[in-house]
């Protein structure tokens, strides 16, 4: 019944014209009458007791609105999971850049002078900055032991494998650094607030209902007195998942006290210093493998640095933990994981959400395991790829056809992998610029983990107008990935209408139901399926009322909508998520069906390493993946290409330099992301294997491309140089250390 007039075709992006003409309105493009600007006074020290606040000379302080923790009308915490993070520090600070005091004034230049004239007197307390210091513990800075969350995943009995005859044991340790999301539009909001009218916030965000929930608690208001409206959003990548709740609360507190609208838009330096980044990680592997290359035991210890407050770290840890053993069939697995506290700004959501960290470790480690038993990286993986009917580390039985070997074949064909593997090895002898080729194979689960989608109970609405136009109502945000376009394709095909007949409504909590957060590769697969169902219900309603038959023209459709609305007032449907019955998950033991579906992939990187300048470059990149049905080929390829570029940045360029718990290079001048001159050709190839749980067969893809580049590139680096590097970012300094260390040792 569902047509495919739109799905699978590159229809024009809904908001494309507004974006290429500069007409699209982002939050900083808006101004409201009487609007003030807001600024945040932040702690310069990583941990301490606030003893005094001094307001410096030469500033007309009586013109300013000043807000401290004492002005909070409701609860002074950012409502999320553990509610341990205050909106404004009260007596103690736990990380540098922690917000302590807020200022508002009509003149944003004077405001900046005033911000610098507020002096916080803080008596320093000992702080911890690394995973090792947190675990020692050098000092207890959170809870009883600096540990936010632990997980244990057990499959089989890993204790029995280490001494088994004919088994080789291979160990390794792998590290990844923090990474800034670096959306080009910084975090920003405009708030209006008063006790009589409640709170209205417009801003750049991924999850309007997260902000809504947080503001309800902060102000102690009933839900209907808080309204959150997403404005056009200039990139998120996870960086606008939880942080907008913070800046929205700050602007709203200033608006509440001043009685005027308040705009807060961070400049780049503040956004980089104060907002979330990807969790740094350390992973230790101990692997038992037979001499013919069968994995018999994997013991994995995975730790992420969560920063000063719990925020989303437990969930990031969960996804990283579940992905840590990869797409391999191994009978005995133990994964222990911990998220720990340090006195740096809280780390948060960033595309991949823990999985890129643990997958990096595994895919580097498997090249080492292969070498230990005299196999090629390819042969080792082929002997262990998971297939239908086998189980993952959490005991999830794979029910779909998985063909990782086929993905590998295709990726190798596109890159001429085997010939290059031989040729580079031959030509590198004595060459200044050495070349290498490497790959990684991996999967990424779509949607919330385990029971997450069941608890979310997402709702999507759909309504028709008397003209026969269809409006999709959801809180899922367009942040560049194409939500509006993809939802319109899905609804149009469900109804047999033209793409132009469908409008996807801008998220506003006063108008749209809560379809859950725009995260976790869930928008197309989970929410898109609800869009499909909600649209189909509109059609069923009209059919049930006898207004249309099985086939109809657009004119028939419009007349039917008009007739129905005349009789009943409105034509609107709401659909709520119901978890498929065959998904089972045990939250206590962390066993079962971790995700409804996985995307599967093999990525190949070709690198060059200049042994004089120590520069490593990616020369060619091929990304082959199976993602169910591709809804929009151009948008889907765009997701993969953009994710691969971010992955290349994380691997080679993006180095967060920490000094006393503060980011020392919080500028685009010295925090380097890939430019047009740095990215290689990125060739994307999709295998399509429709997944029955997704709209028209689609699975999620947004995070997948972040997982593969780092291990593929470092595997290629080892092929090029013969030197192991087991940490990212592999900056030129790190290349020098790796190569010179080898020279000294040889």
């Amino acid at each position, binding site marked *: 019944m569902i047509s495919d007039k739109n799905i699978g075709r*590159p229809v*024009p*992006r809904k*908001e*494309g*014209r*507004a*974006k*290429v*003409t*500069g*007409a*699209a*309105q*982002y939050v*900083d*493009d808006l101004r409201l009458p009487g609007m003030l600007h807001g600024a945040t006074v932040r702690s310069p020290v990583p941990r301490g007791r606030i003893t005094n606040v001094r307001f410096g000379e030469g500033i007309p302080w009586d013109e300013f609105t000043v807000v401290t923790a004492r002005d909070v009308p409701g609860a002074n915490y950012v409502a999320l999971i553990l509610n341990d993070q205050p909106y404004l520090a009260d007596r103690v600070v736990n990380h540098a850049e922690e917000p302590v005091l807020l200022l508002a004034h009509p*003149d944003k*230049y*004077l405001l*900046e*002078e005033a911000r*610098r004239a507020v002096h916080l007197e803080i008596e320093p307390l000992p702080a911890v900055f690394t995973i090792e210091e947190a675990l020692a513990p050098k000092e207890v800075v959170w809870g009883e032991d600096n540990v936010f969350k632990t997980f244990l995943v057990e499959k089989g009995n890993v204790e029995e494998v280490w001494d088994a005859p004919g088994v080789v044991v291979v160990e390794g340790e792998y590290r990844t650094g923090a990474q800034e999301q*670096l*959306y*080009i*539009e910084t975090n920003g909001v405009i708030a209006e607030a008063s006790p009589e009218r409640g709170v209205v916030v417009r801003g750049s965000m991924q999850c309007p209902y997260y902000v809504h929930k947080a503001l309800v608690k902060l102000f102690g208001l009933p839900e209907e007195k808080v309204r959150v409206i997403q404005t*056009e*959003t*200039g*990139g*998120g*990548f996870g960086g606008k998942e939880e942080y907008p709740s913070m800046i929205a609360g700050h602007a709203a507190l200033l608006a509440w006290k001043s009685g005027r609208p308040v705009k807060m838009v961070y*400049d*780049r*330096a503040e956004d980089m210093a104060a907002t979330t980044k990807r969790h740094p990680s350390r992973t230790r592997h101990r692997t038992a493998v037979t001499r013919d290359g069968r994995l018999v035991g994997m013991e994995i210890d995975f730790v992420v640095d969560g920063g000063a407050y719990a925020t989303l770290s437990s969930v990031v840890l969960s996804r990283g933990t579940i992905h840590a053993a990869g797409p391999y069939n191994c009978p005995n697995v133990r994964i222990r994981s911990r998220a720990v506290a340090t006195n740096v700004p809280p780390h948060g959501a960033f595309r991949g959400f823990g999985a890129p960290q643990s997958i990096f470790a595994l895919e580097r480690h498997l090249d080492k395991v292969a070498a230990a038993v005299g196999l090629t990286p390819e042969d080792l993986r082929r002997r262990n790829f998971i297939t239908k009917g086998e189980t993952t580390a959490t005991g999830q039985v794979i029910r779909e056809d998985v063909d990782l070997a086929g993905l590998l074949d295709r990726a190798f064909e596109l890159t001429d992998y085997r010939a290059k593997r031989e040729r580079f090895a031959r030509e590198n002898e004595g060459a200044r610029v050495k070349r290498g080729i490497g790959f990684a194979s991996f999967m990424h689960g779509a949607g919330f983990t385990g029971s997450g989608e069941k608890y979310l109970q997402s709702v999507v609405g759909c309504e028709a107008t008397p003209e026969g136009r269809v409006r999709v109502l959801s809180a899922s945000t367009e*942040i*560049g990935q*194409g939500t509006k376009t993809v939802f319109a394709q899905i609804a149009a095909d469900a109804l047999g209408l033209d793409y132009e007949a469908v409008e996807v409504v801008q998220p506003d909590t006063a108008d749209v139901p809560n379809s859950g957060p725009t995260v976790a590769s869930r928008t197309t697969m989970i929410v898109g399926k609800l869009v499909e169902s909600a649209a189909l219900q509109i059609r069923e309603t009209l059919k049930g009322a006898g207004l249309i038959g099985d086939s109809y023209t657009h004119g028939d459709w419009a007349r039917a909508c008009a007739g129905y609305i005349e009789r009943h007032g409105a034509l609107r449907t709401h659909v709520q998520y119901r978890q498929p019955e065959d998904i089972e998950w045990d939250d206590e033991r962390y066993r079962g069906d971790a995700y409804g579906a996985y995307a599967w992939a093999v990525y190949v990187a070709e690198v060059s390493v200049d042994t004089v300048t120590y520069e490593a470059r990616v020369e060619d990149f091929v990304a082959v993946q199976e993602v169910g049905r591709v809804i929009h080929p*151009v*948008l889907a*390829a*765009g997701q993969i*290409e*953009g*994710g*691969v*570029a*971010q992955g290349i940045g994380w691997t080679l360029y993006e180095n967060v330099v920490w000094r006393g718990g503060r980011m020392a290079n919080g*500028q*685009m*001048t010295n925090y380097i*992301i*890939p*430019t*047009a*001159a740095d*990215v290689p*050709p*990125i060739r994307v190839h999709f295998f399509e294997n429709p997944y029955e749980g997704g709209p028209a067969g689609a699975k999620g893809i947004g995070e997948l491309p972040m997982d593969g580049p780092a291990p593929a590139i470092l595997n290629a680096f080892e092929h090029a140089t013969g030197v192991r590097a087991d940490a990212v970012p592999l900056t030129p300094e790190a290349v020098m250390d790796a190569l010179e260390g080898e020279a000294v040792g040889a």
Partner: protein
Amino acid sequence: MKDEVKAAKSDTAADASGGGKLSVRCTVNGAEATLRAYPLARLLDVLREELRLTGTKEGCGEGECGACSVLIDGELVNSCLVPAAQVEGAEVLTVEGVADGERLHAVQRAMIECGGAQCGICTPGMVLAAVNLLRRTPRPTDADIREGLAGNLCRCTGYVKIFEAVVKAVESRK
């Protein structure tokens, strides 16, 4: 660098309290304009706040990202680094002036068709960088395109679809 940028802003604040706005006469998107601005005000702010041309975006405020790119007398510049007084007598082109009325420029059409705009925040600057490139180099090579766009950062696309859009814009004008 950060402090220098902040210092420039506070100079403006001092001016704000002491008066001293200049009249700057120039052409913006083909129309004559008189800007009322402090001499050191950033052209970016004057365009956005005085003329309400908000298509020009601030990405970094220090000339690294190119989101605030405009053309001044045919030169691609970062408007966050240009004092308003400097455009006296100049022709300024912003993204709002690229299309011919309702008719999009070939670069804009190609950006939509090829998927070169995702979140859209770098897009105005990227469009101007591409327009500038094609004016100077009507038949750019792959290396020309990479060089021509290297001052404009995009975090969404990995640039692949933007390169494709430039190639398509060239082909559409043949």
